[in-house]
């Protein structure tokens, strides 16, 4: 008898894997939004001949001279990787590595702009790598929850640490919301019409700050419980949609939301899927067969 092993066995009990199909496809769209436009920077910041910087983190340019040809090759490699991930099946892991190689080669050659969405895409890719996402017909598959656990740890780190930084180091998040209001009028990230108006209304910016803080601090706990899991994810969807409307943070919101089908409790996701399954069978039988294998 080995109790720890038994509990480990229970913890790794197979769960419904249908969410991974949607996660994979949403991840491809989000990664495409981050990676594909980089071709416009080739020659200027990627594979630049004259503006070659080396940062504390990225020292690629000390080792090699990245030319525009190298940058184009990396961009094509990353793009091909995205197509492979979209195709799925056995090509999926290869595609993830190709995307990571091409994308991070460009990021490292530029040296100073590894964005939050680049990092999050990579962490989600790691979770996908440990998931059953490469399989077809996941709608009828129950598989290891390891990939989902990895995803949860990553999102606990993101939301939990940003929430803790706000709570510990910036008092306005629990006060008048001025940190958020000043972000709304940032010349780079802000100046969206609704955000500019909201920045001048502390009675709205204050509660919005509180909502953000409470969501970020509660996420690490409520994500685990089946009863609270959909509600904290609903708060997350509102949070990211709000960000998309109010601030220019690139594809960050799309990247984060791509993981939500997997973060949703598998049984809740399965029930949700069950409610739309019948109508899908009648209206889109080909899609239903591809997803369900039935």
């Amino acid at each position, binding site marked *: 008898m080995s109790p720890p092993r038994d509990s*480990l066995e229970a913890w*790794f009990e*197979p769960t419904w894997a249908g969410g991974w199909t949607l996660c994979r496809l949403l991840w491809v769209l989000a990664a495409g939004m981050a990676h594909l436009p980089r071709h*416009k920077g080739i020659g*200027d*910041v990627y594979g*630049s001949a*004259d*503006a070659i*910087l080396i*940062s*504390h983190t*990225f020292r690629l340019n000390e080792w090699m001279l990245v030319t525009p040809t190298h940058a184009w090759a990396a961009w094509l490699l990353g793009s091909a990787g995205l197509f492979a991930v979209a195709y799925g099946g056995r090509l999926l892991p290869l595609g993830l590595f190709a995307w990571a190689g091409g994308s991070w080669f460009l990021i490292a050659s530029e040296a*100073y*702009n*590894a964005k*939050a969405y680049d*990092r999050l895409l990579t962490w989600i890719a790691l979770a996908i790598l440990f998931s*059953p996402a490469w399989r077809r*017909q996941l709608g*009828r*598959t*129950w*598989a*290891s929850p*390891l990939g989902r656990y*990895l995803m949860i*740890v*990553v999102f606990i*780190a*993101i939301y939990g*640490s*940003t929430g803790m*930084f706000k709570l510990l*180091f*910036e008092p306005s998040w629990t006060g008048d919301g*001025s*940190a*958020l*209001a*000043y*972000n709304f*009028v*940032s*010349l*780079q*990230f802000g*100046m969206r*019409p609704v955000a*500019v*108006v909201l*920045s*001048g209304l502390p009675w709205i910016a204050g509660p919005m700050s509180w909502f953000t803080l409470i969501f970020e601090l509660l996420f690490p706990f409520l994500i685990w419980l089946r009863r609270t899991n959909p509600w904290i994810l609903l708060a997350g969807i509102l949070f990211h949609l709000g960000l998309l409307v109010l601030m*220019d*943070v*690139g594809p960050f919101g799309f990247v984060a939301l791509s993981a939500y089908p997997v973060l949703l409790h598998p*049984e809740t996701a*399965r029930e949700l899927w069950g409610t739309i399954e019948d109508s899908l069978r009648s209206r889109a039988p080909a899609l239903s067969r591809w997803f369900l*294998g*039935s």
Partner: protein
Amino acid sequence: MRPLPPNALVLPTPPWMRVLGLLLLIGLSIYFIAAFKYKAHQTMPGWLVIGAWSMFTAKDARHVEVEAKALAGGEWHSLDLPKIFPYRWESGHRYHRRHVRRSKKNLGILAQAACTRSGLDPERIRFTELQWTRTLGSFVQPQDDLERIPLGTFRCERPR
């Protein structure tokens, strides 16, 4: 839990993978905790950077812009930096990054690039950081409390 459908495909986690998976989860958690700790103390080793998250947490009440001038023909000419260095992220241009604009070495490299790209055949490039207070609730951001911080003047070293 609803019963599994008759055509369900069940793929259990192999015992060896459970242990390795648990170790992976623990390792990843320690990595993220370390990244949080170092980020909080602002002494981030490079290998922790991709695990540290603190987006938009600090209150920043000042706008920052960078302007550049080129000395050519005995006169200082304003340079259109977004035209010279066109690629832009949502965070702004490359020279907006704090670690770029506050590094003499990086600015020196960008200055040499500007010497060539400006097309003015300049003798020197001068960078200045402009900071002014953000105005809440306004689409117009007047340059109140404008502060001009000289970032450096760099001689164009290309063969002339």
